[in-house]
């Protein structure tokens, strides 16, 4: 498993207005982990209930894929600009 990203930078500018944001993902991860642990009994029950229909396994795989996608986001950079607007997203 890859190392998850630690910071996300978002900068949006439109006309005279704009804002920049540094998102400390490394601080949000422990929070997400706590939420996941709290919700894990519910998730487990949902997976067991849905298992016979095939959706339970799919739900587990989606969770795994979501985590993989999140960890693969390191290095993503999007910069789109014209005269009036500027959007910049960078994941470090």
């Amino acid at each position: 498993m890859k190392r998850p990203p630690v910071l996300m930078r978002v900068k949006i500018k439109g006309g005279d207005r704009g804002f920049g944001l540094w998102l400390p993902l490394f601080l949000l991860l422990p929070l997400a982990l706590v939420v996941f642990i709290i919700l894990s009994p519910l998730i487990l029950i949902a997976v067991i209930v849905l298992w016979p229909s095939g959706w339970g396994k799919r739900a587990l795989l989606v969770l795994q894929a979501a985590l993989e996608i999140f960890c693969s986001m390191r290095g993503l950079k999007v910069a789109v600009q014209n005269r009036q607007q500027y959007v910049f997203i960078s994941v470090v």
Partner: protein
Amino acid sequence: MTENQKKILEMLAEKKMSVDDAYRLLNVIDSAESGQESTHKAETAVKAKPKYLRVTVLPDPANEHSQNVDRVNVRVPMSLIRAGIKLTSLIPPEARDKVNGALREKGIDFDVRNVKPEDIEELVEALSDLEVDVVSSKGEKVKVFVE
């Protein structure tokens, strides 16, 4: 011909070794050198492994200061593309048929069910040779490449 091979042939010419010995030694040198070559090739392949897919759109230098110019610079990690392609295996069967139908409507005869995990690596590696270079009628330069 390498120095070692020359030496062996000289020794054979001077009858310092038998033909069988010379043949055996030449084979050993050959295999050792091809081994070194393949290691070097593997190292080069590892070095050349693409890390990012880049998409850039640059305005025409003549219109650079005009109002309606867009600049785009996108860098997508290959690992993210890999993970995204893997997601296709999680598409529910009903949705897959809809996706296939929509692709067929656009003239793309492609079945997403055929994308297997073992094909993903091959697909991503094939991207390393990708390079798209387009200049639009407005003079904008669109580049898609991997680095």
